[in-house]
């Protein structure tokens, strides 16, 4: 990977880390529960992109991009597999991310339902007013 490419990829990684920081700030410091849920979706999506970025690889050659980890031939020969292993990005993070997206969906829907209940019972979604349990 050339210097320029490394630099550009670094920009991507650093903006992801800043996204993690900003969305953590949103979850921990903003008062509205809805804003917290929005920040939570951003946070878990950023974690997923980070995982995919880790599975990415440098280009095999400057003109040949890496390929998705999908074997298209039905009965691959050894040569096919060797070529595939040289070209494809890492499949495992993609499997992890698929699981994480589904789990994140379940958690988010549950939290949305609870926020609705909170509004129904407390008349507000501001966490500074939703503080009946204390001490």
């Amino acid at each position, binding site marked *: 990977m050339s210097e320029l490419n490394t630099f550009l990829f670094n920009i991507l*990684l650093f*903006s992801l880390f800043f996204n993690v920081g900003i969305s953590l700030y949103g979850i921990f410091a903003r008062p509205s529960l809805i804003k917290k849920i929005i*920040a939570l979706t951003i946070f878990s999506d*950023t974690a997923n992109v980070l995982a*995919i970025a880790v599975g990415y690889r440098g280009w095999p050659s*400057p003109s040949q*991009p890496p390929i*998705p*980890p999908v074997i298209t031939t039905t009965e691959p020969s050894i040569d096919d597999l060797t070529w595939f292993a040289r070209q494809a990005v890492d499949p495992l993070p993609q499997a992890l991310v698929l699981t994480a997206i589904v789990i994140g969906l379940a958690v988010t829907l549950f939290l949305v339902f609870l926020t609705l209940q909170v509004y129904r019972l407390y008349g507000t979604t501001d966490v500074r007013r939703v503080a009946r349990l204390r001490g």
Partner: protein
Amino acid sequence: MIELDTLTYLFMALAGVVSLIATYLAVLENDLIRAVIFSALQSTVYAILFYLLMAPDIALVYIPVAVGLYPAVVLFLIKKTERSEGDLGGAGGGSE
């Protein structure tokens, strides 16, 4: 002449910066509906990133969930509850 790989990395960096700006605006926006729109913009950028990072299958799962479902559900929630977030400044906030 710019090389193909540099061009791809350039797009990735650009997508990263755009998502950073969108996240910043989404978190700091007081109007929740605009915050949802910014977060949908950020999700779209992430979907492009998934495609650029050679994970088209993840992009296919991610687009309906994060670009379609999340904003719809949160917009539904905002419609049922309240639209603005209230100020962060005042000491003690709304505790009575």
